[in-house]
């Protein structure tokens, strides 16, 4: 074993001792140490050494805190700032490129940061965020084996939870669905979103009551309005105790006003809360269902007791149906393995899509995608800065040499260059704050958000400061260390060349930049292609001039008259009523039987009850058989029309004339109907999924929706005014509102379109940043090779040859980037497309197009500089020598 003094203490001594004393005292220590090892052994010598070192730790031996104790640090920092500012001003062009690139990058990052903050803080307005949950009813789909969950639950579930698990729940509140309801006072009438929910909701949601209290919802005929709605209805008058007619048939007294809930809450769209009992009082069909485990009409919100873990509750109530549902009914549904599931408020927004019984994805995907995009765009901007700074290092090399010769330590040079980066980034940050202010309305519109700039919040400024520091580190570290590592001797002798070694990382970074931005471009194009693909999908009906009104109880008994009056105006080609509008499916049912049915099939059919003229109104295409008809008196009892998907699903080659049997839970036959026709698939649900097997029943009492088709010869505005007149005359108590099928259809694309628009913007900005960087690099290279170009020209090179020589280097990099980006983007986007059942395939032309356009754009950018350099007069560039 090597005998030497305890290394930790030797190091400790070297660390604290004054430099002037360090070496010889250490020598003394070591000399004594070895002597002691000889005389009294290593252990004792080690101990004595340690004691000696500890005793040496005393004033007189310990060094000062700083080796340069006589330097004035303030002055030095002042000098850094001055030099940094001078450098920015001296190289205005480069500073402009740097600031523009960084400002774009930072603006994108800031907007994305605000967007993500808005998404993540969704629902946080409610103080009981951590304890609120919604009850879902889950069951296993026996065909696919997957667990499916839905918000609508059985009526007795509420009481079961309340009575059997009181230790977990603070509140269990039944509620109807958020929807539009007409609010009217004498002289005023609005449609507003509202929620019918049991008392206690105000407290659970921790609303700020401006008037009234949390008890305001207890009386069955009360209503609590949002501040803005109260203003709209009553102006400056005190709304309390005023009477409102709700939906034309409920009378309610205003008992409270709450401060509007911000829009980034599930309840943000709500303008009023009304008691659930009020809704019950006018919906007889909901009465007497306290023991009905079969239907699932409405939903429950719950608030947990504090310190209750939701996972434990979910585990505890998993067997609820088995133990509380009457066993004779449970046996009929046992194969679905039903169970209730509490979904906490934190998952409502970001994890709204369920996967096998667990909230798995949803907007969180977009949060992640955009976080990645933001980081990438910022990275692109930082790479620009790094590249331009290191490329210009030759210009600064002499300065570094001189500074080092005078005695600058490496740390000081690093500090100086970091300060320079900091100055540039602070300028860029200021610019991007201005951009943030000006572009916010546009961003809000594109992203469909109401984001305010949190300039008054300290946390915003703190995080901005941290962000600036991080960006400085990201962009400034490499150049600072690169520049300050120059060897002073070589630099001053003039032997320094911007070596090959230094240009390699730069080339790699350009490749990274272009890879990212080409990949972004491909991603954007694929999103657009998918939207286009779905929009061009055959829908099976005719959207032009098709509109619908939802009918509430006010229209009861007046629909036939209304239809007759409407037809008499001569602006409509056809009218019909149906259970749901043509763009939605509201009812799915299972439990049908037919001849030759595969016993394993047990999926839901989509159901739409329609009136006689539905087919004529929406213009569906009968492929086989016939439409409903007045000539066949049995149609109202017996007829059914199915779509292609249903025919395929049921495995029928010739479906017309076959029978469909409805079975009740016990398997007994309820009724039988004859299939009279097959229609081409009508796209009623998501344009990205396959069309569900759908059954169209003839039922003249399907009175939820009134469908109308405007004659092609009549202008839409004229037709609308006519329709409105008729509706006002026939049903004066209703609020006239309508939807065009076209609008409802295009709304289904809004999410993807928004994503497409945002990513298009980011892709374009990313490309701009890359081109800025390329522009800077090209101009630098052109400047560096001025003399070489001059000599080449004198010898006889043509402008084209020179341009080719200078540009080729850059184009090479772009080609390499494309080669990396294409497979990567293809892989990722193909994965994205798998989410859609109805999807496009990524065409090769799209990939080629993205690459070619990246190549062209970069070639043009580079050529701006290289062509100018090549055309320059050699006399001017060579004159100076």
């Amino acid at each position: 074993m090597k005998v030497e003094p305890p290394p930790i203490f030797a190091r400790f001594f070297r660390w604290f001792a004054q430099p002037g004393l360090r070496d010889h005292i250490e020598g003394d220590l070591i000399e004594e140490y070895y002597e002691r090892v000889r005389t009294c052994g290593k252990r004792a010598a080690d101990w004595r050494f340690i004691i000696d070192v500890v005793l040496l730790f005393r004033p007189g031996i310990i060094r000062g805190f700083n080796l340069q104790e006589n330097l004035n640090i303030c002055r030095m920092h002042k000098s850094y700032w001055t030099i940094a500012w001078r450098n920015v001003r001296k190289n205005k062009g480069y500073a402009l490129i740097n600031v523009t690139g960084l400002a774009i990058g930072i603006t994108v990052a800031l907007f994305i940061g605000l967007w993500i903050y808005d998404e993540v803080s969704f629902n946080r307005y409610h103080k009981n965020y951590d304890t609120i949950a919604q009850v879902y009813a889950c069951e296993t789909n026996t065909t696919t084996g997957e667990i499916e969950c839905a918000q609508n639950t059985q009526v007795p579930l509420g009481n079961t939870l309340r009575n059997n698990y009181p230790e977990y729940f603070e509140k269990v509140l039944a509620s109807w669905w958020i929807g539009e309801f007409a609010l009217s006072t004498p002289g005023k009438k609005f449609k507003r979103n509202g929620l019918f929910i049991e008392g206690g909701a105000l407290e659970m949601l921790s609303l700020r009551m401006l008037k009234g209290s949390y008890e305001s919802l207890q009386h069955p005929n009360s209503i609590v309005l949002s501040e803005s709605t109260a203003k709209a209805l009553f102006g400056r008058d005190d709304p309390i105790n005023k009477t409102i007619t709700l939906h034309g048939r409920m009378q309610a007294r205003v008992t409270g006003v709450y401060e509007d809930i911000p829009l980034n809450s599930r309840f943000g769209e709500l303008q009023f809360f009304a008691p659930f009992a009020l809704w019950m009082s006018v919906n007889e069909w909901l009465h007497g269902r306290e023991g009905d485990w079969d239907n699932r009409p409405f939903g429950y919100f719950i608030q947990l007791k504090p310190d209750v873990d939701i996972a434990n509750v979910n585990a505890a109530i998993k067997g609820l149906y088995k133990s509380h549902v009457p066993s004779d009914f449970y046996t009929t549904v046992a194969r679905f393995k039903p169970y209730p599931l509490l979904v906490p408020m934190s998952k409502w927004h970001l994890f709204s899509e369920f996967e096998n019984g667990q909230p798995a994805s949803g907007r969180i995907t977009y949060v992640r995608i955009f976080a990645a995009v933001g980081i990438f765009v910022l990275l692109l901007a930082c790479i620009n800065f790094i590249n331009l700074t290191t490329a210009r290092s030759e210009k600064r090399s002499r300065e570094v040499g001189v500074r080092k010769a005078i005695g600058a330590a490496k740390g000081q040079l690093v500090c100086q260059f970091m300060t320079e980066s900091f100055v540039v980034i602070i300028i860029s940050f200021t610019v991007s704050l201005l951009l943030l202010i000006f572009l916010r309305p546009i961003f809000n519109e594109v992203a469909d958000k109401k984001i305010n700039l949190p300039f008054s919040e300290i946390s915003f400024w703190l995080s901005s400061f941290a962000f600036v520091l991080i960006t400085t580190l990201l962009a400034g570290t490499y150049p600072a260390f690169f520049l300050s590592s120059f060897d002073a001797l070589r630099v001053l002798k003039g032997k320094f060349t911007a070596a090959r070694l230094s240009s390699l990382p730069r080339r790699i970074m350009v490749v990274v930049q272009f890879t990212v931005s080409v990949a972004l471009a491909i991603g954007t194009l694929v999103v657009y292609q998918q939207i286009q693909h779905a929009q061009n999908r055959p829908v099976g009906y005719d959207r032009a001039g098709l509109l619908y009104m939802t009918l509430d109880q006010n229209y009861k008994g007046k629909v036939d008259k209304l239809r007759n009056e409407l037809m008499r105006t001569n602006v409509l080609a056809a009218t019909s009523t149906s259970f749901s509008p043509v763009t939605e499916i509201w009812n799915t049912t299972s439990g049908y039987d037919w001849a030759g049915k595969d016993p394993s099939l047990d999926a839901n059919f989509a159901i739409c009850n329609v009136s006689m003229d539905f087919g004529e109104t929406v213009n569906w295409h009968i492929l086989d058989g016939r439409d409903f008809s007045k000539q066949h008196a049995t149609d109202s009892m017996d007829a059914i029309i199915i779509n292609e998907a249903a025919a395929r699903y049921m495995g029928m080659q010739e479906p017309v004339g076959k029978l469909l049997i409805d079975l009740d839970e016990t398997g007994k036959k309820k009724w039988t109907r004859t299939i009279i026709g097959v229609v081409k698939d009508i796209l009623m649900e998501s344009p990205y999924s396959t069309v569900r097997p759908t059954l169209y029943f003839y039922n003249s009492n399907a009175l939820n929706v009134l469908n109308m088709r405007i004659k092609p010869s009549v202008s839409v505005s004229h037709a609308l005014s006519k329709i409105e007149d008729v509706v006002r005359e026939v049903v004066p108590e209703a609020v006239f509102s309508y939807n065009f099928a076209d609008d409802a259809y295009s709304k289904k694309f809004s999410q993807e379109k928004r994503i497409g628009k945002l990513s298009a913007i980011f892709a374009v900005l990313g490309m701009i940043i890359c081109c800025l960087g390329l522009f800077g690099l090209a101009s630098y290279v052109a400047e560096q090779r001025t003399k070489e170009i001059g000599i080449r020209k004198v010898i006889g090179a043509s402008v084209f040859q020179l341009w080719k020589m200078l540009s080729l280097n850059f184009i090479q990099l772009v080609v390499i980037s494309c080669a990396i980006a294409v497979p990567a983007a293809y892989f990722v986007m193909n994965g994205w497309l798998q989410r859609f059942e109805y999807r496009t395939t990524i065409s090769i032309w799209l990939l080629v197009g993205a690459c070619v356009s990246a190549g062209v754009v970069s070639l043009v950018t580079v050529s701006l500089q290289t062509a100018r350099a090549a055309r320059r007069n050699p006399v001017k560039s060579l004159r100076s020598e």
Partner: protein
Amino acid sequence: VQISPGIAPSKKTICFACRDIPTFRKQISVVKKFQLGEFEEIVILTIAILHTNAYGVSIKKEIESRLSRKVSMGALHTALVRLENKGYVRSTDGEATQERAGRPKKYFQITALGQKAMAYTKETRDHLWKLIPKAVFDIKGTEK
């Protein structure tokens, strides 16, 4: 800025950091009063005894053997630093030997000022000794 340990005193004026300037200043102010602590006196005497071979370890050994008292490295070097700061001794770098793992020795030499200080101390002591009445020792002697 690194200060190399081997800079000779004459070169100090061109040293950028000039950390030794305060030393000179202190030296001037101290000249008026020769002040030697008890341990400092022992150390400076030992340096005188060792003459040309006075460096850390040898001084330490000398004191330990002659006065049979333990001397810690810390105390010794603090005293040496103080003596040097007062200008009573000066140091020169010596050779680096194997057993010191290549670290240089630092030899100490008494300066003219140091000699004066020693003489001054001795004189004051002698003067004080002389002032002691004979009887003091007698009484002590009789008591024993």
